[in-house]
Each structure stands twice: as structure tokens, then as C-alpha cells.
């Protein structure tokens, strides 16, 4: 007897299916609310090699749904912690931790090492990046996402370009502000638990041919009433419009911009945004004492050089607006913070404090 006996005695599954799982590698993008349950079940099921990519650190507010982690993991990298926990449970599978965020520069190199990609990320720029890279690399993609009390699961790109991909469904991306994520509007931990587990189930079914998978279909689920709704997806001629078709086109994409997250804004927009959006903050990235001071708008002061160490001060905000003297340091600051917080809306205010006093005063 081995630890997989209960699944290979299952009629219709059998030792051959177990063998397939053993020989397969799966990359889990994001060790978050979806990634944690998916990882638990895929490792338990005996997937031969599992990669976990996540540049984020475990924080207290993650613990209601990111069930791999506990208090002792706070502040640790999610991919490394998750890999350690899983490797300790099972020594018969290979687990690779990739402790940084996916970018258009690194994604193709990473996904080429895996047979199947599972997207448990939490923002639109990453979702489009993963979709496009999977198309270029010819990798099947198990997709799952949640919104408040609802979830959606699908398998994209199962058989190459003739299969459905995310852009067939949504050729024009929603702006990130149009659809808030769970950091902003909250979620009961069991919902990503259910959806992440369904994603794991779809991986196993797809890899072994057990049952009918969600290939080219999307399944919607509502936790409040247990309604589910399955839609047959269709190719969309608009889907190729702005899709990068190869490595160099991918490098030219700006996924933040594509998803309406431009890196610059003006004072008028910034001030109205601060007034109307929850969880927003304005940050002065100049050195202490630089003049003129902004004295009539509430803000934080974090000099550029201190930004890498200011994670705890900024982590609770979803919208971060940055200004400096003339708008060039704050642009640098956007880049620095984007690498720490890829799912946040981070913008530099054009023209800086000079423009503020010049135009508005």
C-alpha cells in the first residue's frame, strides 16, 4: 500500500492515472487564497513536481483564507513557506519555491519548465500576462478567480490556439478600479477554499482524463445560495487584437497600462481619487524638510530611499499616490513599489508639488 491507494483503486481512475500525475509538473501562480488549497490537494494527489511562485510575504490579514500559513509564518515569503510546509508533509514529490513575482521578463523562462499552469493570482495585469505567456509557450492553463461571494473556474488553451483563452472571454480588460479584489472588499476564507479546490480537481481531471474537465468552459459558483452556472465558451475574433504573439511582442506589452493602471496621474484626479476611494494614501517621497510643504492635504512622508523599508506602513492601502518636487522621483518610486505590491494601484502625480502650487493655488 502507498499513500495514493485510495485514489488508484477508484473505478475509472486507476494506477495508470496515478502514474500520469507522478510524471507531471504543475506551476501554481500565487500561494494565496486559491493557491493554498490547490497546492494542498495537488501535492496530496501525487503530482510529481510542483512549483510555487509568489513574491509576497505572509501577513496577518491573509490568514483567514491562506490556510497553509499560521502565525509563525508572518513576514515570510509565501512561496518559500508553502514549499517548506509541503516538502515536510511529502518527501516523494519535488517542490520548487520561486520567491518572486511573475513579470513579462521572467514568465516564459519559468513556465517552460512545467506541463500545466494554475493561475491563482489576484489582479488583472497578472491574469492577462499569464494567459498570453501560456499561449506563446503552448501551456494549458487552469484559471480560477473570485469576487466577494462568487467564483469562476475554467481551463484555457488546453489544445493550443484553437482552444479558448482568457482574451476570447474578455478581449478588453476591465480597469482594475472597475473590479475590486479581496484586499479591498473582503472575502470569506471558504470561498477561495472551494474554488482553489475545484482548480486542483480540474488539474487532476485534465491530466488524467478522469470525467469531463472544464476545457473551453467556465463554471460560475455563488457561495450564498450554492447556485452554479456552466457556460460553453466561444472563440472571439477580437481576442487577437492586442495579444502579444511571441517573446519579443510580450516584452513590449505594458500590462499595467493595458489594464488601465497608468503610472501617472494629475493633481486634480489624484485629489478627487483620495476623496472618493477607500484605502487610499498620498505619499511625499521627498527628503524631510524639502520646501514647499504640502500642508492642506493629509499625506505620509516617506523619502525615496526609505521606501523599500516602508512595507508595513503602506501594505494596508490599495491605492498609493506618490508625489515629489517635480514628478521624477515619484515615478521612480512607482517602479520601486510596483515590485513590492504588484496588485496595488500605484501612481505618480505629474509635475509634483511645483505643479500643485503652480496650477491649483
Amino acid at each position, binding site marked *: 500500500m502507498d499513500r495514493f491507494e485510495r485514489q488508484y483503486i477508484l473505478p475509472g481512475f486507476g494506477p495508470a492515472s496515478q502514474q500520469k500525475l507522478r510524471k507531471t509538473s504543475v506551476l501554481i501562480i*500565487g500561494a*494565496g*487564497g*486559491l*493557491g493554498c488549497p490547490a497546492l494542498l490537494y495537488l501535492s496530496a494527489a501525487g503530482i510529481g513536481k510542483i512549483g510555487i511562485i509568489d513574491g509576497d510575504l505572509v501577513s496577518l490579514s491573509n490568514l483567514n483564507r491562506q490556510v497553509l500559513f499560521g502565525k509563525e509564518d508572518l513576514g515570510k515569503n509565501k512561496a518559500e513557506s508553502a514549499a517548506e510546509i509541503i516538502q515536510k508533509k511529502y518527501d516523494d514529490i519535488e517542490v520548487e519555491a520561486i520567491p518572486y513575482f511573475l513579470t513579462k521578463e521572467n514568465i516564459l523562462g519559468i513556465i517552460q519548465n512545467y506541463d500545466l499552469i494554475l*493561475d*491563482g*493570482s*489576484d*489582479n*488583472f495585469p497578472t*491574469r492577462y500576462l499569464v494567459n498570453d505567456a501560456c499561449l506563446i509557450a503552448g501551456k494549458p492553463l487552469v484559471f*480560477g*478567480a*473570485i*469576487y*466577494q461571494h*462568487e*467564483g*469562476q473556474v475554467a481551463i484555457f488553451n488546453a489544445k493550443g490556439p484553437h482552444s479558448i483563452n482568457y482574451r*476570447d*472571454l*474578455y478581449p*478588453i*480588460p*476591465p480597469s*482594475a478600479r*472597475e*473590479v475590486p*479584489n*479581496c484586499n479591498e472588499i473582503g*472575502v470569506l476564507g471558504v470561498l*477561495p477554499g472551494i474554488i482553489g479546490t475545484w482548480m486542483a480537481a480540474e488539474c487532476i481531471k485534465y491530466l488524467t482524463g478522469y470525467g469531463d474537465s472544464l476545457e473551453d468552459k*467556465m463554471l*460560475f459558483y*455563488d457561495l450564498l445560495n450554492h*447556485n452554479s*452556472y*456552466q*457556460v*460553453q*465558451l*466561444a*472563440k*472571439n*475574433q*477580437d481576442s487577437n487584437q492586442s495579444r502579444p504573439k511571441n517573446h519579443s511582442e510580450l516584452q513590449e506589452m505594458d500590462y499595467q497600462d493595458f489594464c488601465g493602471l497608468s503610472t501617472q496621474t494629475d493633481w486634480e484626479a489624484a485629489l478627487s481619487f483620495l476623496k472618493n476611494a477607500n484605502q487610499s494614501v498620498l505619499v511625499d517621497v521627498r527628503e524631510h524638510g524639502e520646501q514647499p510643504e504640502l500642508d492642506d492635504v493629509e499625506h505620509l512622508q516617506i523619502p525615496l530611499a526609505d521606501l523599500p523599508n516602508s512595507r508595513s506602513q503602506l501594505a494596508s492601502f490599495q491605492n498609493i499616490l506618490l508625489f515629489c518636487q517635480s514628478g521624477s522621483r515619484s515615478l521612480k518610486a512607482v517602479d520601486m513599489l510596483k515590485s513590492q505590491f504588484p496588485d496595488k494601484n500605484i501612481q505618480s502625480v505629474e509635475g509634483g508639488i511645483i505643479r500643485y502650487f503652480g496650477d491649483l493655488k
Partner: protein
Amino acid sequence: MKLLAFGKIAEIIGKQEIEIENFPNTDILVGYLQQQYPALKDLKFSIAIDKKQVNGNVSITTGAEVALLPPFSGG
């Protein structure tokens, strides 16, 4: 016809399922909904008729079930 709404679209309409008069095609239906619920104008969504995704302007047969499917990003 029956209209099903998911995610933020259901929030805006106030219900997940409503019975409405028949509309000849999806463009006219969406135009009507945007007029009734102006917040819908800012949203991207895909449409399914009788559980099949449709693209472009598609005619709607009497008594069909039309679902408005917004993207989710959370994880």
C-alpha cells in the same frame, strides 16, 4: 426572457435573476440595460445565451436565457 447577472453586475441590477420583456438582439438589450442602470456602462462583461458564450451582436430568441458574465480577478 430571463436575465442572469453575476458579480458586480448583479450588485448594480440588484438581483441575480430577473424576467424582462424580449429584446431582439444583444446590442438592444445591453443598450436598454445601460439606460436603466448607468453604472453598467463602465463595466466589461461577456454574454451567454442559453449557456453559450456569444460575441458581437447576436439575435435573442423568445424565451431565451441571457447571462451577463463579468470578469473576476480575486485570488
